[in-house]
Every structure is written in structure tokens, then in C-alpha cells.
């Protein structure tokens, strides 16, 4: 036990840097994912062309099937090494689940509700913002939460292309047979998942509350 405490003290700055890099990697990729995938998912709900919806989902599914290590390697000739290619790869992975959940969430809203809204004079924009988005929120949030969990775990591979993160501790520890490093890297990722998931839980609750009020006042 003393050995562990001494180890943690000695390496605390390295562990801190790795954790910070990991948060930046996942944070930016998931954020970009949300910015692209949520509007895209909404647009597809309103798209009149079925083939377009199918193609977009096909492409997003296809991206999902590329092994993460391969995707990281594929970007090296175009984007080089470091954070940039890692973030692009992780961002691409985040698109599908967020977009799929947004799409399904919007489609889940009962047609009669939308009819009623139209009857009350809601414009399309109003019905998106005031009706469909609040009702689809649990779907979208669960999409974001799932995505964040596995982006955090996949980001451990980013160290192989020079992007750092908790994977640095795991790969380095594996190489010199220092189990402590591997354990710290893994536990770090687990803690990160637990913390962000709790955080998203709060955000979801707050958003639901707010939207609940606005919808009741407008109704």
C-alpha cells in the first residue's frame, strides 16, 4: 500500500497531464459530435428524400465498423500525428449514436401531438424547439452518454499516434512491466466515465425541468 501511495505521489504530475489530455480529447470530440450529429439527425427527420436518410445512416454505420486502431492509422498521412487526427477519428465515431438517437427521438413524438401544434399555429421551427426537442431529450441525452463512455475508452489508443492521454500510462506501463501505471490508466478512465455520466445525468434533469416549465407556460 505504501508503495502505491509513493508511486502516486511521485507520478502525480504525469497522471494529471495524462488525465487532462484525455479530457480534452474526449471533450472536443464529443462536443463536435453533438454540434454535427444533432442538427443532422433533426434535418434527416424532415428530409423528404428517403434515399438521403438511408445513405447518411449507411455511411455513419460504416464509419462505426472501422476498427479504431485502423482509423487512427488511416489519418496519419493526411493529418499527421498528435491531437488533431485523434480528435477527428473520435469525432467520427461519435456521430452515429448521437445522430441515431436524435433521429429516433424526433420520430417517437406522436403525430397527433404535432397535428395539434400545427392547429394551434406553431411554425415548424416552434414545433421543433418547443415540442419535439423536449420530448426527444431523453433519447438524445442517452445517445450522448453512451458515446462519451466509449469515446473515453477508445481515446486510450490515441497515445499510439502521439496524442497522449491515459493510454500513455497504459502503453508505457505495459512496455516496462510497471503494472501500477497500467492500473492507474485504467482506473483513471473508469473514474472519468463515472464522473461524466453523473454529470450528464444532472444536465439531463436540469434541462427536463426547464423545458417542462416553458412548455407548461406556453401551453
Amino acid at each position, binding site marked *: 500500500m505504501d508503495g502505491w501511495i509513493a508511486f502516486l505521489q511521485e507520478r502525480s504530475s504525469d497522471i494529471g497531464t495524462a488525465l487532462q489530455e484525455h479530457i480534452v480529447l474526449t471533450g472536443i470530440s464529443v462536443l463536435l459530435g453533438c454540434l454535427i450529429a444533432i442538427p443532422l439527425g433533426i434535418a434527416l427527420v424532415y428530409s423528404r428524400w428517403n434515399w438521403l436518410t438511408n445513405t447518411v445512416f449507411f455511411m455513419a454505420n460504416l464509419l462505426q465498423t472501422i476498427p479504431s486502431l485502423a482509423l487512427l492509422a488511416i489519418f*496519419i498521412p493526411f493529418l*499527421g*500525428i*498528435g491531437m488533431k487526427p485523434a480528435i477527428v477519428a473520435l469525432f467520427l465515431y461519435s456521430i452515429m449514436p448521437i445522430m441515431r438517437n436524435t433521429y429516433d427521438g424526433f420520430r417517437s413524438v406522436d403525430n397527433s401531438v404535432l397535428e395539434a401544434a400545427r392547429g394551434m399555429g406553431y411554425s415548424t421551427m416552434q414545433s421543433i424547439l418547443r415540442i419535439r426537442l423536449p420530448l426527444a431529450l431523453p433519447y438524445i441525452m442517452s445517445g450522448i452518454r453512451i458515446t462519451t463512455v466509449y469515446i473515453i475508452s477508445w481515446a486510450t489508443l490515441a*497515445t*499510439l*499516434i*502521439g496524442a*497522449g492521454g491515459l493510454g*500513455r500510462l497504459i*502503453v*508505457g*506501463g*505495459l*512496455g*516496462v*512491466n*510497471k503494472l501500477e*501505471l497500467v492500473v492507474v490508466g485504467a482506473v483513471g478512465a473508469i473514474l472519468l466515465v463515472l464522473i461524466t455520466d453523473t454529470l450528464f445525468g444532472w444536465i439531463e434533469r436540469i434541462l427536463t425541468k426547464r423545458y417542462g416549465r416553458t412548455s407548461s407556460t406556453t401551453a
Partner: protein
Amino acid sequence: MIQIKASAKKVTALLLCGVLIATTLLLTGCGKEDQIVIGTQTFTESKIMAEMYKALIEEQTDLQAKVIPDLAASAVIINAMKKNEVHMATLYSGELFNNHFPVEETKDRQEVLKQAQAGFDKYLGFTWMDSLGFENTYAFTVQSKLAEERGYERISDVVKDAGDLRLGVDTTWMERTNDGYPAFRKAYNVEFGQAFPMEQSLVYEAVGNNQVDIVLAYSTDSRIKAYDLKTLEDDKQFFPPYDASPVLLKELAQKHPEVVQAIQPLIGTIDEQTMIDLNYKVDIEKKSEREVAIEYLEQQGLLVKKNEK
């Protein structure tokens, strides 16, 4: 009653089937008695050497060999050898300094090899053969253009500019105790502006494309030449010597001396340039390690060509 009996029979039959399948799986899972497992590290050279051992062993003995590629580091290989999961590998004499057993500090090539041979024999039960004839050490390299512009010849020349330089290294090197980054910083009293740990095979491309300024290369890697890199002299002799040797379990060497005999002709015959050329065929010409290994052995007359048999 009859029905119960019938179903009991069925259950027994099913159970028997299950046991049979499980035992077959277990038996095939366990390695064959006479199969020699050769472990390699992630870089090309150790894979080419493993293919050479395999070809020679299978040609000259009744044993079969299997190559397990891409083990993350020498520590992984040595641990697997201790557990008898890997029987053979190429290791480098500087491995001595990785805290396996007490050693005497020295940088003399012969002395390091001698200590490695004696120590690994005594403490771990490995037979450490003589050097294959080449050394593969760590080499700090920069683009030749940059070296010319700033007059870099030795690592000490870089120290004054280090704060502005981006360093690209293997992730594992950051963690090595005796010849890793922390010890290196102390020895040269140097601190690079930014360090990018990555997979070793990417450092050459990274420095070649200006994504980092200085990288820690492996001295026998052909990409040093391909990317026109300049190797800086280790003027403080920080890195220990790294002579490459075939290493196998003593138990195997004693039980099957013909294995040692099969590999013996390679000892002392491969110099640095030869190894660089062999690596070039794999890393740049994209041939397979096996093809390159067999082609070399045939050229040397160590292996009879298939079509001449």
C-alpha cells in the same frame, strides 16, 4: 418412468459430448510438445530474425517453430520466457540494466555482453548466445537539413536549443528506468519543449514531415536513411551498448542442442549495414519479414532453395 430414463440418457450423452468438445479444445489450446515459440517485439528487425530462426530450426531439426509477433516490449518477452510461454527471442545486451539482477556498471560492449550472458544464465535460466554481429541502439536523430543549419553533431549541441524543440519518442522509452527520459534529462541536463510519446514506428515519418524536430530512432532502422535523418553522437555515452543476440531457454538448449547448432551459423555474421538493408526491404519495399529472411538465408547458403531440392 421410461421417459425420465430416456431423458436421463440424453442428458448423459449431451454431457459426454460437452466433455469431449471441451477436452479437444483444451488439448488443441495447449501448444504442441515439440513446438518452439519464438517471440518478437513490435519492430521489423526482431521479426526478420525470428523468421530466420524458424526457417533454420525447421530445416535442420525435427522440431516445429511458431512466431508470436508484436509483443509490446522486451519485458513482456522475458516474462513470457520465464513462464515457458515463449522459448526464444532476439534480445539486446543493454537489457542487462533493466533491473533483472545485480550488475556492475559499465559501458564496455564486451563486458556488457559477458555480464548479460552470465547473469541471465544464472538468475533466469536463459542461454544468451553470442552477438549476431550488430548493435541496435537508441539514436537521437534530426533532419539533415536542420543539423547542417545549426551545426548539430552531438547530442550536447542540441541542449541549448532544446526548449524550442519538439521531441518524438516511443511511449515505452518515457518509462524506462535506466536509459529512459527521466535519466536522460539528468545526464544531459536537458529539457525538451514538448515531448510526444507515440508508437516507435511513427517517429521517422513524424520528424521527416516536420511534425516534431528531434526523434529517438533505432540505429538499424532503414527509415533513418529514407527520411534523410542525421544521427547525433551520444557524446556522454548515456545509452548502454545494445548488441543483438538470440536468446533461448537453457532447458530447451540442453534438451535440443540441435536448435543452438541450427542458429549458430548466424552468430557474428550480420553487421549493422546488412541489418539496415534487410529492414529496408520490409519497411520501405514492403516485402514480408518471412520472404526477406528466407531470401537472405538462401543467399548465404544457409538454406537450400525450395526449387533446387
